[in-house]
């Protein structure tokens, strides 16, 4: 080492790194440093680097290392817990006979005091739930989905039943899309009948969705809310572009929860929620839908929008501290989810569309679950069961047979791919 280091220099550096004492270092005379060769020697890397640059040592590795490290340097991994001040509202959907409804069970979401699945900060109180979609008329579906629902598309009650019995749905969403004036213009009264049918067909809590037509939905959802009196359904949805007041009042009057829907806009979500508070909607009757965009089609915006809302809520913004519902079925709008081949001539082969669609729905669901989603409206039974499985696992639900316990995880290095041939 050509450049000498004065004690004053050294003291200054040590102070900068909060080092009080250096073990295994002998200071000889004024300026020479000698590093001891005992096994435990370690300078914090940042300190070593600073000393080194001060002394003009050019070569990065080696200058301050012990001659040969004979044993691992001991270390303890320590991490602080994140403390948040806010808490997400707990919302219960469905009402049993004890509460004036006819549901056999209820579903509770929300109540988080930490980011999703951060059980090391605070245990998540309820796992996310999955509501499987059905519609009040046959609709065009991707082939991969149609094969599951082809036999029940004419009958919303049967469709709902299938979602629960065969696909294990926690909840069912009935979308009253035929009420749209540009589709069938089904009258509100007829739509209310469909809701009654679904309520009779299944005993799980339900979501009642309109057609998305801002002019017609208030009337339709009002009639549906009345028909479902006391069942504590989720009414989907109120938004700023329509007469949300009429919908909110109907939900309030007939004992339902309201879905407050905005389009990827935090401020709009706060505004709409405040309007709902003003109308007297209790906090435990609000779920929010900040909008789901599919993988590859704006998922980044949806993810960040939800993550930001959840973080704001945990930091104490009570305007946003509500459970979040995500319309994961939107994933099927991605062309990769259904199109036979790539429309672009220069892409590598896209493979079978059926495999892609399922994948798009799964990844969209899990992504928004990691952002803060509490409830997923889904379409493909296998996507629903996969998202359920992973969210339950991260939530910490006990499993019957933990296959992972039987494998040494580092064995992937020598894993023989021959065993992985598809049986399907």
């Amino acid at each position, binding site marked *: 080492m050509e450049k000498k280091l004065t004690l004053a220099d050294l003291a200054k550096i040590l102070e900068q790194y909060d080092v009080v004492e250096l073990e295994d270092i002998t200071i000889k005379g004024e300026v020479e440093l000698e590093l001891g060769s005992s096994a435990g020697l*370690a300078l*914090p*890397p940042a300190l070593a680097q600073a000393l080194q640059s001060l002394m003009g040592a050019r070569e*990065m590795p080696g200058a301050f290392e*012990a001659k040969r*490290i004979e044993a*691992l*340097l*001991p*270390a303890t*991994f320590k*991490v*602080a817990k994140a403390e948040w001040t806010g808490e997400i509202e707990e919302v219960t959907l469905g009402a049993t006979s004890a509460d004036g409804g006819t549901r056999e069970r209820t579903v509770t979401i929300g109540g988080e005091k930490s980011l999703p699945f951060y059980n090391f900060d605070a245990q998540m109180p309820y796992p996310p739930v999955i509501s499987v979609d059905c519609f009040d008329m046959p609709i065009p579906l991707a082939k991969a989905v149609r094969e599951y629902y082809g036999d029940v598309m004419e009958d919303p009650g049967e469709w709902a039943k299938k979602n629960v019995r065969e696909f294990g749905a926690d909840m069912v969403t009935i979308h009253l899309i035929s009420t749209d004036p*540009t589709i069938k213009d089904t009258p509100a009264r007829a739509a209310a009948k469909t809701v009654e049918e679904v309520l009779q067909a299944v005993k799980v809590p339900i979501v009642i969705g309109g057609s998305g037509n801002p002019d017609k939905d208030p009337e339709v959802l009002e009639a549906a809310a009345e028909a479902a009196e006391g069942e504590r359904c989720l009414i989907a949805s109120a938004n700023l572009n329509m007469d949300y007041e009429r919908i909110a009042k109907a939900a309030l009057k007939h004992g339902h929860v309201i879905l407050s829907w905005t*389009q990827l806009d935090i401020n709009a979500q706060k505004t709409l929620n405040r309007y709902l508070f003003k109308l007297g909607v209790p906090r435990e009757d609000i779920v929010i839908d900040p*909008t789901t965009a599919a993988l*590859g*089609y*704006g*998922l*980044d*915006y949806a*993810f*960040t929008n939800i993550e*930001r809302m959840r973080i704001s809520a945990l930091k104490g913004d009570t305007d946003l501290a509500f459970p979040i519902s995500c319309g994961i079925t939107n994933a099927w709008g991605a062309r990769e989810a259904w199109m036979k081949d*790539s*429309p*672009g001539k220069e*892409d*590598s082969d896209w*493979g079978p569309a059926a*495999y*892609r669609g*399922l*994948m798009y729905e*799964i*990844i969209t669901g*899990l*992504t928004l679950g990691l952002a803060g989603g509490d409830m997923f409206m889904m379409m493909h039974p296998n996507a629903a069961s*996969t998202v359920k499985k*992973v969210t339950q696992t*991260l939530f*910490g639900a006990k499993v019957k047979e*933990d*296959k*992972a*316990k*039987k*494998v040494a*995880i*580092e*064995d*992937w*290095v020598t*894993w023989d*791919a021959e065993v*992985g041939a*598809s*049986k*399907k």
Partner: protein
Amino acid sequence: MKLSSPMEIWKYLPGTNCGECGEKTCLAFASHLKERSTRLEECTPLFEDEKYADKGKQLAELLAPEIREIEIGVGARAAKIGGEDVMYRHELTFYNRTALAYDVWDTMEEGELRERVSRITNWRKFYVGEFLTLDAIAVRSVSGDAQTFAACVKAVAEETDLPLVLCSFDAKVLEEGLKVVPDKNPLLYAADKTNWKEVLELVKSYKVPVTLFSPDLDMLNSLALTFSSAGVEDIVLDPGVSPAGEGLADTFSKFVRVRRVGIEEGDKEVAYPLMSVPMTAWMIHGDALDASYWEAVLAAMGIIKYADIMILHSIEPHSLIAERTLVENIYTDPRRPVSVEPGLREVGTPTGHSPLFLTTNFALTYYTVESDLNSNKIDSYLIVVDSEGIGVEAAVAGEQLTAERIKETLESYEAENKVEHKTLVIPGLAARLSGETEDVTSWNVLVGPRDSGRIPGWMDDNWPPK
């Protein structure tokens, strides 16, 4: 980075407003440094003028990202990983996207091996104006034989310019592999509590980046401290991926907590890029399709929560498309504008008889439609409506795309002077607007397909209009 505002950065700059960096003032340059939208090296006086040398050096250290940035591979396809500064992308942006490495193994028959390497190397998919590609190839020693591994690495290196990850827990096997590609800067996988001394020697003599593996975080920390104290800084940490059950919940927690310590607590001992190995999914699934879905689930967790590089097995299209697209979504700079300029664009060489398509100014929608027209060689006009950066379906629902706004757009870009047929093709997802648009614009309105990928087929049936 350790500095919290442009002002704090500015104090270390020359303050002469010389303009060498391309900015008018040192403060403007400082803002770019804070946003990580320029490089410190652009301030040439800081490095060339002796009197700024100290400040330059200090500033470089203070600006260094919280998570160390390392590079694997060489040449045009070398991959930078790590270099992250935030826990949530909206706080700034995630910086170096998760590198996706797909595996090959040394018991593969050579023809099959070369074919797989070439598929990984050449895979691509068009997305928002560019082609997505894959990032690396992981070569696994299944045979356990050093010579067999070396031969495999050699064949792989001949087929690809992608960075390599050499995988074995046997230092002798790793060394034989390294000897074949000493100048390719491969990432070694891995040193653990048993082989660390031998691997450390290898890393020091070959000067390559190394992965440290331990599911026990104290041990992982200890390995990292040991290697960095030995002067090795190009480190990647693998806390292990347990593919299911309690182990998976624990895996998730480890990735978050290790990154939290590195970024929020500023603890440099573990502030290194993280590796995730979703291919562990294959060890618990008997069926390849099931395994590929579960592998993608593990991959998605890693892409979103802090894996900087990952090793995967399925190279089936459904896996590659979904995994790579998710990386692109999560690592896109959230500060990038959502929208493109509205206007009237030409695709190919349109004439007065070419179709006029309408779309919104949501960047994703615009680039998709434009590329579909281009790639299918459809000479046409594309009129881009200002929908406030919202896609077609949502903009119709939210009334950012209305008949009135379509009318204004047609008028302000003088569409009438471009086409003789006065026919406008609107997206299928905006079908609801067709009647009203005809009424207010007095143009003929045709409803196109719901997805612009189907425009070629739609053209066969509908163009020219009757």
